[in-house]
């Protein structure tokens, strides 16, 4: 069992946990956090599996950076919408979800 696998498995675990959080929580902020955990999981998988026996692959690293930027942008957008939603409705979760 290589270290790469550890990273990847941690990533998988994070993804699973994030998914669970995403399902289990109603609070939108928590769901966003869960989403970010899932994102981190994905990135870890990317990074972890990039290291096979032939050396370091930098392409996934670049992909992860792009992914992070996208995730940041998405999270920011989600936060903006969430805050607007909260301001308009006073709710932290979505209607019909409870």
């Amino acid at each position: 069992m290589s270290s790469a696998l550890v990273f990847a498995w941690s990533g998988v675990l994070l993804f699973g946990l994030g998914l669970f959080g995403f399902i289990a929580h109603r609070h939108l902020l928590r769901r966003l956090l869960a989403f970010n955990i899932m994102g981190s999981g994905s990135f870890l998988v990317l990074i972890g599996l990039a290291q096979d026996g032939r050396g370091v692959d930098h392409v996934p690293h670049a992909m992860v950076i792009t992914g992070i930027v996208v995730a940041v942008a998405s999270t920011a957008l989600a936060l903006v919408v969430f805050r607007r939603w909260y301001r308009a409705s006073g709710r932290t979760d979505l209607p019909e979800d409870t």
Partner: protein
Amino acid sequence: MIGLWSVPLLFALPLALGILSLLVTPAWRPRLIFVGLPLLAVASFDVLARLVVEGPRIYELGGWQAPLGINLVVDGLAVGMILMTTLVASLCALYARVYLRDYPPSSSFFWPLLWLLWAGMNGIWLAEDIFNLYVGLEVMGLAAVGMVALRATPQALAAAMRYLLAALLGSLAYLLGVALLYATYGTLSMAGLHEAAAPNVTTHVALALIILGLLLKTALFPLHAWLPPAHGGALTPVSALLSALVIKASFYILMRIWLVLGPEVTPIFTAQVLGVLGAGAVFYGGWMAWRQHHLKQLVAYSTVAQIGYLFLFFPLVTGTGPEAARLAWDGTLMMLVAHALAKAALFLSAGNLILAVGSTQISHLVGISRFRPMSLFSFGLAGVSLMGLPPSGGFTGKWLLLHSAILSGQWWWLIVLFLGGLLSAAYIFKVFRMSFREGPQIDRSVTPPLTLDVTALILASAAILIGLTAHLPLFWLRLGSAFGAG
């Protein structure tokens, strides 16, 4: 490939226009379309002309070849989608220019969002790189979410939030799938994947992730829940754009990846599951559409139903003979294009009707046929295509799918097509029945500006015409695909 300016322009131009429209004053934002639309139209048709004359090609961005750099694929399918986007988005833009006049200035942010959405979609149509597709999906998805949220009412915000969550979840699943595929094959290029793909656990799990991610974004039943509030509650041109184009993008990616991975990797069982979900969408969406009391909700659920037809592609193309597969390809694309045109028309004309009666309630449409025949006529023409009645693109698509289903011996899809058509007739005619009922003798309805009616009518007519002249678009769409030879 030298001199293919039009290809990068397809996404660069909308990007530039998006930035530009952010910089100018709100009043100037709509006017940018008079620059943008002709240019984009020229670029689209140039791409088409080159495709027809010179055949499909690969565009190597940055001069780097596939596994290292990012390539763009300029084949029939991509160009077909680009043309569809140009047509529908242009008309929606023209519609929006007039429609948004009555809305507060904040709605002028529609324009940068529109251009970025357009850029994202064109990026997706052209993409040959599965990670690039992820970024493209995000561009398009966030723009779409922004458009849904544009009204900033609580309903709009909730719908946008729900949409955003779904989009994010889908994107992540897709990304993880991409990660696994990359880890397995060391390439992100579709061409590379096509050559290397082999059936193993990693590939299948990756495929599952990709499928599910894209299903969520395509809003296939039962993952469609975000769609009706988002599409039904948005501004009319936004609804039209989202229903007509945006959901098609994720389906398009799924379709491409499915074909890229090839019959050895894509399991028949999964294909059937997708077909069954499609059938469920047709039934459930139709039923729900029929139950709606609000016009745009009805149209939105109709989208849920119509998406189902597209997913018959997978069972019909997987493990079937070449002829059946070709027909399934033709049929699905015909359905896709026809639905794009018809649904845009349906939303726009529904918007006109709502504008006319000042209410979204279907029951308030009583007697409207007398006063607003034109809006209703567009609605009807688009409805014809959705019901799959001839002569229309919807019919031609249905015909091809039926053909394929019979040829491949999967008769059970016939039932879906049969009942689906009847269900759509039920909800379309629900609107008509109301409008034909004799109501007040005095015209109290508002007359929408002519542009609104005309754009809807053009789209609806296009949905009809494409059915009559289907062989040409279908021929183009096959260029460069596995079905091109037939």
